[in-house]
């Protein structure tokens, strides 16, 4: 239970977005995430598939920052820094893997690796 006297104790109750404005930003974030998801499933080019995962990261970042502003709590923005860190690490590893796979089959087609053997 929230102490009813608590809001008066806190000097700045910083809810700085209205619900509807938060909903709009969340809608944009959701659209970015779902478009990235669809792209990841449908595209067959390995590089474009990883681009689509980066687009999902973008949607998550928009969502986190909108919630951060809504709650007046900076931790959401701090967390985007960690999201960026993971995205950078993922890009480095994934692109290294893509280059290695390309050397083996001379194609970026994900279907070329549909049958896992050897």
């Amino acid at each position, binding site marked *: 239970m929230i102490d009813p006297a608590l809001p008066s104790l806190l000097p700045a109750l910083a809810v700085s*977005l209205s619900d509807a*404005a938060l909903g709009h930003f969340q809608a944009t974030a959701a659209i970015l995430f*779902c478009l990235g998801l669809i792209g990841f499933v449908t595209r067959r*080019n390995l590089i474009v598939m990883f681009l689509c995962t980066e687009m999902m990261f973008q949607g998550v970042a928009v969502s986190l920052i909108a919630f*951060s502003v809504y709650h007046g*709590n900076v931790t959401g923005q701090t967390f985007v820094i960690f999201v960026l860190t993971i995205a950078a690490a993922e890009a480095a590893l994934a692109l290294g893997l893509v280059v290695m796979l390309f050397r083996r089959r001379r194609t970026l087609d994900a279907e070329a690796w549909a049958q896992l053997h050897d």
Partner: protein
Amino acid sequence: MQSTILTNPLTIYLAVVIGAVGLWFMMPKGRQNRRIVGGVLAAAALGLGWFGTYEALDFANLGLSAIAFVYYYVFSAIAIVSAVMVITATKPVHSALWFVMVVLASAGLFLVLSAEFMAFAMIIIYAGAILVTYMFVIMLAASAGGPNDPGEDEIFDLRSRTPTAAVIAGFLMLAVLLTLSFDKGNQPNPLAAMPSDGEIIAEVIPNRSADVLRDRIETEIFRFDPSAEPVIHQADPERLSNVEKVGLDLFQSHPLGIELAGIVLLVALIGAVVIAKTRVEDHPEPRPSGAAHPSGHGEADTGAAA
């Protein structure tokens, strides 16, 4: 706060269905592409969705200025259109360039939300570093022709894999997320509110005032040249800037997270070097028969693999 929320989500569902049909038409599907039709449908869906959610907005009690919210529409439209182009472009270079637009537009959204630090960090790291890496790999792995040869699109870029099922699944999820976005029941959480900036300043960084800074600068930096007059930006004693807020939160509340992020980056660095130095055989494995591919580049660029 008045809880203005949609009375009728049917408009959103209609917009989602139209958008799904539009995106399905825009998906690359070999010969018969109806991208114009799909683009018009998708744009109509976006407009219909925003028209349907417009009634929920209470411009007197928005939390942002109304002008800033106009920029929400501008940047969101750019981000969504660019995102659609990323997943429907048939050349990977075009996908990467459209993704830069997605990054810039979402940085604009961050500016609308007055998260300046993350906006510029996003531009610098994503558009500046990660996307450059992607472009390098696209160039490295460009298989058809040289830079002057526009070449033909790869067959696997022209045909998407299970577009119907993917669009249905993705837009079902989108419908759920949009319903939740405009659901009622988001009440302000007083526990989540932070102390005022003045309290943080007094408690954590009391020596932030211009006088202390001037003393330190004069004693530590300008002691060799007493005639120089330092120019000191007068910090607002009651408000922290966004960069200061993020920095304080990062280094006060998440020191372990910083260390872990450093470890993750180190592991990724070592892993990338190991992967890049892995020897692969000079003769690429024979293609599986199912993977159709335009011929004409097998032995010519094998040397690049060495």
